[in-house]
């Protein structure tokens, strides 16, 4: 008997739609969009094909991880890179977990059967990704020679001054208007920004000897492809109603700026500052995947529907030249508050950066020279002591307010409802003012630690090794003399909240 054609089976499956007549829908967040009942899932996802496909993907990923354990590849990877994964992998997992909730949110809110079928596949995918990344972290934890930090990754990320960028960036996946959840998650993050992260970054991993991350991420991104299609299906469904168009443009503008702040920072820092071998320059990768592929081949083709590419794109391009240099510098400057190690840059690194970003050495070289000079505890100094003041963190994206350049930040400090806030840029200022309620619920990171000794803060955060005295973070990769809480306590460094009047 001939197998029925996919088109016919998919059409037939849509007849088995279900309604909400067994319960009164009571969405937590109501939508301001008119959602037409007709929409298209470009992949025509059927559960039978989906399960077979995902089973094969998992077999390949776990087979590769098994081989990596067998051949001890974790210890052939560049330690600088694996250290960076202590910070980066929990950030990715935060995104996946928020996206699990986001896809469920879309299933319950968007009453469009074909789109909902795509979201259902996506929800299962996001659970898979959370599990894959947890397995990857376990692989590092069990096989890398210095696992401290991998063991508390998710908690450590949530408490970290820059780690909170992940929560700020990914919580919009399941908070707010359901259609804007899809714009943020499916259209902006997954279509524009997962490509530099989950396709291009594996090339850096391979160059630095880490095949485990490359295999895991490339498989994850094979699911993201369907999520991009869910975003396209949602967008093309919503543009059928002219009243939706201004809202869609505002949502694209907001989420593009916010995702740019977090993703360009994260991928830029990891690919260039937490690697030894760099196959590309981040700015080029951003231009290829975000400007050419996302803006040129997608956003700029939507003009006939009244949609436009984000107007802040030139500003994003301006920030991309510098922001990851500033973020890497800020993370190195506050190194005792990290839960991973950052070694000093070498002459070879200096040469690469100068060639990739002419003028880099004049702007950033001095800091990295100082960082190297202070890397041994015998120096009795840390870079935080040299800062005129600690930088505040942006109330919207949670980036340190050193953007785009630490020597020329575009920080804005203002009062709202009797309290002082800082934002890192005009874009985040605009987002804050769209709906301040979203952003005023959390304290600036320094606020609860004001007046405390740095050593007590590190201890409270739990960023200490099992001996109870050695810091997880170290400004070097050597094992002979590591910084301890006592070394930090001797500095008598007291945290000063920069927003306190």
């Amino acid at each position, binding site marked *: 008997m001939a197998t029925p054609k996919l088109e016919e089976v998919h059409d037939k499956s849509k007849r088995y739609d279900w309604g909400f007549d067994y319960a009164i829908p009571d969405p937590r967040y109501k939508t301001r969009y008119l959602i037409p009942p007709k929409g298209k899932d470009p992949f025509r996802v059927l559960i039978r094909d989906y399960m077979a496909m995902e089973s094969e993907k998992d077999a390949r990923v776990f087979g590769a991880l098994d081989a990596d354990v067998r051949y001890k590849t974790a210890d052939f990877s560049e330690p600088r890179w694996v250290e960076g994964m202590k910070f980066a992998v929990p950030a990715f997992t935060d995104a996946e977990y928020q996206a699990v909730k986001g896809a469920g949110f879309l299933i319950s809110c968007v009453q469009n059967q074909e789109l909902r079928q795509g979201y259902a596949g996506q929800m299962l995918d996001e659970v898979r990704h959370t599990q894959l990344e947890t397995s990857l972290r376990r692989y590092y934890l069990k096989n890398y020679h210095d696992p401290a930090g991998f063991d508390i990754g998710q908690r450590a990320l949530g408490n970290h001054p820059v780690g909170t960028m992940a929560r700020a960036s990914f919580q919009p996946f399941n908070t707010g208007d359901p259609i804007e959840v899809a714009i943020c998650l499916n259209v902006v993050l997954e279509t524009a920004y997962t490509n530099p992260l989950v396709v291009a970054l594996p090339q850096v991993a391979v160059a630095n000897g880490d095949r485990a991350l490359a295999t895991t991420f490339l498989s994850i991104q094979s699911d993201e*492809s369907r999520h991009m299609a869910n975003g396209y299906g949602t967008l093309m469904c919503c543009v059928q109603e002219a009243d939706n168009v201004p809202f869609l443009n505002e949502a694209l503008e907001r989420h593009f700026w916010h995702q740019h702040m977090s993703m360009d920072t994260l991928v830029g820092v990891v690919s260039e500052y937490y690697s030894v071998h760099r196959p590309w320059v981040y*700015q080029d990768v951003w231009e290829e995947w975000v400007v050419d592929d996302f803006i040129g081949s997608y956003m700029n083709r939507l003009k006939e529907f009244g949609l436009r590419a984000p107007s802040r794109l030139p500003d994003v391009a301006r920030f991309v030249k510098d922001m990851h240099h500033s973020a890497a510098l800020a993370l190195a400057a506050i190194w005792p508050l990290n839960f991973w190690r950052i070694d000093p840059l070498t002459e070879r690194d200096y040469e690469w950066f100068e060639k990739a970003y002419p003028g880099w050495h004049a702007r950033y070289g001095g800091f990295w020279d100082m960082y190297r000079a202070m890397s041994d505890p015998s120096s009795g100094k840390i870079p935080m002591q040299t800062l005129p003041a600690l930088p505040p963190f942006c109330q919207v994206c949670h980036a340190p307010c050193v953007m785009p350049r630490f020597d020329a930040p575009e920080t804005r400090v203002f009062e709202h409802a009797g309290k002082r806030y800082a934002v890192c840029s005009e874009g985040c200022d605009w987002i804050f003012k769209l709906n301040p309620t979203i952003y005023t619920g959390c304290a600036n990171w320094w606020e609860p630690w004001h007046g405390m000794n740095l050593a007590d803060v590190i201890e409270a955060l739990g960023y200490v090794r099992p001996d109870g005295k050695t810091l997880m973070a170290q400004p070097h990769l050597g094992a002979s003399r590591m910084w301890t809480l006592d070394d930090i306590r001797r500095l008598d460094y007291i945290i000063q909240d920069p927003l306190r009047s």
Partner: protein
Amino acid sequence: MAEPSRATRRMTDARETVGISLMGSEEAHAALALVRAEMPDAQITDNDCFYKIEREGLLELDMAKLGELLGRPITVPEFLVNMSSYYGRIVINDGILQIHSDILPARFRG
């Protein structure tokens, strides 16, 4: 002010280019052979662990032809195991994967 980046000059252009990224695998190598034979104008980039194939207007992969090159039958879902990413508008039909530059391919009209 510094010279504008390459991106600044391209930002308002609408492109006709579409692309697909395939992680390195036996199926990907067969797909590269198929593309080279049937779409010689396509640009293929080797990125160490994945390939990016780009072309103006349309990319089309017929699973029957791919199966011939692989020496075994392959379905679209089996092929999708290898597809890390794409850009353009994807259309999945029985045994055929297409990526269109058209913002609204026929399947999405009406």
